């Protein structure tokens, strides 16, 4: 098959799956997955062929092709075009593989849901949108896919709409994303009018040229880049738009794994990485990206400390890890960011599916205070989740270790010491809260409702877990070894070379016995320390020996750090503040406009009425006549218009 056909097939398969499932899904019940899952498995196969062809270097720098001209209006020309290169391939690996596994997992997870045909339809639609996002060859197509993934995410979060919280969370996700998208779309429009094209290749060629020629001021480039970044902040849930992601956990767990951990939330990272030739033109914008990233990492980790909902802990850890990725992008370690994106996709997808398995096993209970001792009942889930936790904690030689340490090392070497310092601290915090989660869930005495009999999940769920655990454990070693020179660098360095050149970075070899080795030692030590503290407090089961949790020490500790605990528990009150800002004030503005619209004329009129009342007339009970109010409003508009025209045009 030709490469173009592969790309089109990759898009067409999930789209067809969506259309067929939406149209006939109800007839397929109870096996609603009969079309959707095979479609995605096929798409995975197609994707892998494409990935192999790209990464093996058969295609050189990749390939691009135009399907048709979307908007053929002179200087506003936009094509429907696709571009595949190594970066695309890296994303394709994550999206298709995890997508496929999550589809399979959902067969078991959603087995008893009466509306699952809709679920599979939406899930297929999401796959289509996400693949379109990754394959798009210009910003407008990317933006379209961007909005479509947002839409499918919205539908999936609100899938269990009977829960009011789910409907609210869906709405919140959509609307918060809208805020970021305003910036994103303005940025795209600014690009469009400056460049006259939105193709990645054109934009990356023209903007530096114009900047060098002085046709474009540096602040303009910074502005455009930051506007684009707004979109990434929304979609990847970075501070200050991070509030939607934890709430998005109201969706079914496979959705959380696929969309809100492994794929869609990476779209922002992908977009910034894709735009690296632009971002590298503005060092101030890079600093902003790094600052927001690392701050989010810290903020989210601090919140994850105290949450008791298992999925929320994972959600905040996702925020935190995405923060790492943005920090990496900001310090110029693009390849490291994508590397972390890949490893994180696998281990976080794994963790979420594990949590889904746990929730499933204890009959839809998400509160960790009502779990405990589950390792005996759910051995596969426990084992795979342990792998995932070790991976995210950055314990060598699991996947997370390699990617995270590349980020930290690069921040240090590129001179972002603060980023490094916070990053290392967050690494320790990550290990702590993950093993707090493990302890509360799997070890120690059981707090499970006595009526509930925890059980291991069916094979359709456990097999994906095992399949995901393998990359979560080994992916780092496979593509990240040797450090700074592994496969992932061979793939991605050519892509990011122009940006790194602009930034003046010179990749150096990794020094095991130099500064790099020390940095790794520091971060691993901190991570191990966090892990050990958590294990001592919340328990663990080691071969041959159980460590019992010590709730009294935990209570004493929280009592001593009461203000911090409360702040963390309440997520630093962001939701409350935003609620105030957006809903109360925004609502007030809207109400005000409404009031203005319907009462201002009355107000004028009533003022006049009051004067006449003073004159002794009894006017109080006279009803306001609407038509005359409208007429008076129009007449006043006419007067203003007449006066304005006279003043403005006849001087």
């Amino acid at each position, binding site marked *: 098959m030709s490469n173009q056909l592969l790309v089109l097939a990759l898009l067409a398969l999930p789209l067809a799956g969506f259309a067929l499932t939406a149209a006939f899904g109800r007839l397929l019940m109870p096996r609603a997955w009969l079309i959707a899952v095979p479609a995605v498995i096929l798409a995975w196969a197609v994707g892998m062929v494409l990935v192999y062809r790209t990464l093996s270097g058969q295609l050189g720098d990749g390939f691009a092709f135009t399907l048709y001209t979307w908007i053929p209006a002179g200087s506003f020309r936009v094509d429907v075009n696709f571009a595949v290169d190594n970066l695309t391939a890296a994303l394709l690996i994550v999206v298709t593989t995890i997508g496929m596994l999550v589809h399979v997992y959902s067969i078991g997870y959603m087995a008893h849901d009466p509306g699952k045909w809709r679920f599979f339809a939406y899930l297929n639609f999401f796959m289509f949108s996400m693949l379109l996002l990754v394959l798009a060859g210009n910003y407008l197509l990317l933006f379209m896919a961007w909005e479509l993934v947002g839409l499918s995410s919205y539908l999936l979060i609100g899938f269990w709409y009977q829960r009011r919280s789910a409907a609210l969370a869906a709405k919140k996700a959509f609307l918060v994303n809208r805020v970021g998208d305003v910036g994103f779309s303005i940025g795209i429009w600014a690009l469009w009018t400056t460049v006259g094209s939105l193709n990645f290749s054109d934009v990356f060629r023209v903007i530096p040229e114009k900047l060098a020629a002085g046709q474009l001021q540096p602040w303009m480039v910074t502005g455009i880049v930051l506007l684009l970044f707004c979109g990434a902040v929304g979609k990847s849930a970075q501070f200050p738009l991070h509030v939607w992601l934890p709430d998005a956990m109201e969706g079914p767990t496979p959705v959380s794994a696929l969309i809100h951990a492994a794929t869609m939330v990476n779209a922002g990272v992908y977009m910034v990485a894709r735009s690296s030739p632009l971002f590298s033109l503005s060092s101030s914008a890079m600093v902003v990206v790094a600052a927001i990233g690392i701050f989010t990492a810290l903020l989210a980790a601090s919140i994850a400390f105290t949450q008791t909902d298992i999925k929320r802990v994972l959600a905040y850890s996702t925020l935190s890890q995405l923060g790492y990725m943005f920090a990496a992008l900001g310090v110029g370690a693009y390849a490291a960011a994508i590397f972390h994106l890949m490893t994180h996709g696998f281990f976080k997808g794994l963790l979420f599916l594990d949590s889904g398995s746990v929730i499933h096993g204890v009959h839809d209970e998400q509160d960790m205070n009502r779990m405990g001792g589950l390792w005996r009942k759910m051995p596969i889930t426990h084992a795979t989740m342990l792998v995932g936790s070790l991976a995210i904690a950055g314990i060598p030689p699991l996947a997370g270790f390699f990617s995270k340490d590349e980020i930290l090392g690069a921040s240090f070497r590129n001179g972002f010491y603060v980023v490094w310092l916070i990053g290392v601290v967050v690494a320790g915090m990550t290990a702590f809260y993950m093993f707090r989660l493990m302890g509360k869930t799997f070890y120690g005495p059981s707090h499970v409702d006595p009526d509930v009999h925890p059980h291991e999940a069916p094979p359709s769920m456990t097999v994906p877990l095992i399949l995901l655990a393998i990359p979560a454990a080994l992916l780092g070693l496979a593509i990240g070894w040797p450090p700074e020179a592994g496969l992932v660098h061979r793939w991605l360095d050519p892509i990011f070379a122009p940006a790194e050149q602009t930034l003046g970075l010179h990749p150096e070899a990794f020094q095991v016995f130099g500064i790099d080795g020390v940095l790794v030692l520091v971060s691993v030590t901190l991570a191990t320390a966090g892990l050990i503290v958590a294990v001592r407090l919340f328990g663990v089961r080691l071969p041959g020996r159980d460590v019992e949790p010590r709730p009294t020490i935990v209570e004493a500790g929280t009592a001593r750090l009461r203000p911090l605990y409360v702040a963390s528990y309440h997520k630093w009150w962001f939701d409350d503040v935003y609620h105030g800002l957006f809903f109360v004030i925004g609502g007030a503005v809207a109400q005000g406009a409404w009031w203005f619209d*319907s009462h201002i004329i009355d107000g004028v009129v009533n003022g006049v009425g009051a004067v006449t009342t003073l004159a002794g007339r009894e006017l109080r009970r006279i009803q306001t006549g609407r038509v005359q109010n409208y007429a008076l409003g129009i007449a006043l508009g006419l007067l203003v218009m007449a006066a304005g025209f006279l003043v403005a045009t006849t001087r």
Partner: protein
Amino acid sequence: MSHSLDAYLILSALLFCVGMFGFLARRNAIAMLMSIELMLNAVNLTIVAFGAFVPALTVHASAIALMVISVAAGEATVGLAIVIAIFRNRRTPLVDEYDRMRE
């Protein structure tokens, strides 16, 4: 005075404003309709006045005025039909009592 375009235009402007006042002030739908007719008459007076004083416009002015008069007749027909229809529903010609839709 009768030979000055300004005089006729001012007269028509005054008529227009009287009509507008009636439209803004009256509560009765038919009275409002009559006010609109006054305004249309004012426009017609403007047109005919221009025609009388600008030779190039003379014949056209009469033609246009005739069209406007016919349109006014159509408008009156429609308006009175609607007034009668709503009177059947509400039993009052007072427009400001038609306020079931607001906000």
